[in-house]
């Protein structure tokens, strides 16, 4: 196992391995830091930040569905400034590569966050485009190629750090959106965010979530995510971080084969706090057993010709 190389390069970032934790599922790293040394991870994406503190949505905020969960946290977070003051220093002390996930309702908000983060110790910024664009009547930034391109372009000019654009799956054609982000200057892409869904409690005859709608994550969404990652990897020239329902190393390998340069683990953390570590080990074992010496050898290494 010793001579298997797990290092990957995402937009200039050298990650010691391709396993990242997904935004919103790993807090600011403290909680899971009680279970293991988080510097063993390729990187962590911290919970979604906004310019100002946000309370989030009223409870209940979670429902379970077959092989999935729905959340409607609504971006509860202390705001970017308090993140930089209270959370980041301790996190950097741990020696882990930190990616900040930013969220806004206007392009200006995004840009101001990018500026602040650019002067900080974060390694990269992930631009979450699933947020409603208030200037466009609340339609999410991420569903129209023009908005994606424009938002990416502006944020790209607001700072120097690698910019990862995170795509929403609630679109007609993910490739069109991915190309728009690339055109806007994204250094890498991250997909997928959660699927827009709902659940109903038949006893109370109400939506299970106070917010009515929420985002679906977990194993149920994996086939959707895998398809989108595969399609996008075939169309863009920038690296892709694949996520959506990854719960073990087999799932992770599927995303790498589909073309993802790294993978992010979200909901699986809740089920098994050690999931990311077990996935790193599993990828290493898979490489050894299949005779590949580097994880880069399997990225996109899928054969689509017919025949057995």
């Amino acid at each position, binding site marked *: 196992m010793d001579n298997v190389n797990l290092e990957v390069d995402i937009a200039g970032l050298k990650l010691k391995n391709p396993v990242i934790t997904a935004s*919103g*599922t*790993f*807090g600011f790293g*403290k*909680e*899971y830091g*009680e*279970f293991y040394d988080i510097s063993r991870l390729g990187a962590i994406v911290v*919970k979604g930040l906004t310019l100002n503190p946000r*309370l*989030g949505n*009223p*409870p*209940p*905020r*979670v*429902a*379970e569905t*077959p*092989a*999935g*969960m729905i*959340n409607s*946290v609504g971006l*509860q977070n202390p705001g970017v400034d308090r993140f930089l003051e209270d959370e980041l220093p301790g996190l950097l002390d741990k020696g882990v590569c930190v990616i900040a996930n930013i969220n806004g309702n206007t392009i200006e908000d995004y840009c101001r966050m990018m500026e602040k983060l650019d002067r900080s110790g974060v390694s990269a910024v992930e631009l979450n485009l699933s947020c409603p664009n208030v200037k466009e009547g609340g339609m999410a930034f991420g569903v129209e190629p023009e908005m994606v391109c424009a938002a990416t372009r502006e944020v790209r000019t607001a700072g120097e750090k690698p910019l990862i654009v995170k795509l929403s799956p609630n679109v007609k054609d993910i490739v069109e959106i991915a190309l728009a982000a690339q055109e806007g200057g994204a250094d890498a892409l991250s997909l997928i965010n959660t699927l827009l869904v709902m659940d109903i409690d038949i006893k109370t005859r109400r939506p299970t979530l106070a917010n009515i709608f929420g985002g679906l994550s*977990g*194993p149920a969404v994996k086939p959707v995510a895998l398809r989108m990652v595969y399609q996008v990897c075939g169309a863009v020239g920038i690296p892709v971080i694949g996520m959506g329902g990854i*719960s*073990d190393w087999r799932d992770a390998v599927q995303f790498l084969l589909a073309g993802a340069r790294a993978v992010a683990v979200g*909901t699986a*953390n*809740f*089920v*098994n*706090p*050690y999931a990311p570590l077990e996935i790193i080990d599993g990828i290493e074992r898979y490489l050894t057993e299949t005779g590949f010496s580097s994880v880069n050898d399997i990225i996109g290494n899928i054969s689509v010709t017919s025949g057995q």
Partner: protein
Amino acid sequence: MKLVDKCLIVENSEIQENIFRMKILSPQMCSIARAGQFLHIKCGGNKHALLRRPISLSYRLAGEDTLVIVYRVEGQGTQFLSEQKPGVKIDVMGPLGRGFAVDQEYGRVVLVGGGMGVAPLAELARVYGNKCTALLGYRSEPFLTREIGAEAGKLLVATEDGSEGHRGFVTDLLPRELSEQTIDLVYCCGPRPMMKRVLDICRTHGVRCQLSLEERMGCGIGACLVCSCATRDKNGNPGYSRVCVDGPVFWDDEVMLDG
């Protein structure tokens, strides 16, 4: 310290219709778990009942290195739990959360439990023994009264259908307890309307109270923010707290039960 452990089930028996008592072997968790904390239990395969289920520690059997939980079958997760046989291992994360504030200096405390809310009070009865009065309310058939009665200084039962003890709500019994002698703290767990009533009564009598809340959970350790409940901070400003780490036990002045 939080652990994730595959723990042996030592016993799993139906003590009332649809209510089970499970004894779980875990020397480590048993030595550190405190009253009011909970266990986050995987109920079935990774991908099926995806999320863990939070179940309170009911009481510890220190001599046997076991934790006892008491749970009602509600849906697929607790159904799964109820089907597990002794000898099987289950995946438990715990002990989690902020438990009840325990102070050996207290002279006298009252425990008020309603329905499944009786479960987490059992450990408190062991901690306070003679110094505590337990008021336990049920719709009909009581459970855990033997275990709690054996430890608590005094035990009163209320049932809505009058099948045992006082006919009516457990909260009917509280004012008298608070009037008759000085009570240092009331510990409360049960359905929301009951807890509201307890809070009101305690406020009227000027007695402090701790309440154990429930909310649906994801991670169980503070990372995902799905388990929020409305609370007030020290300055009285409203906001959200995480039931899994800031609770499940909250002080009377923290909770906003209408929120």
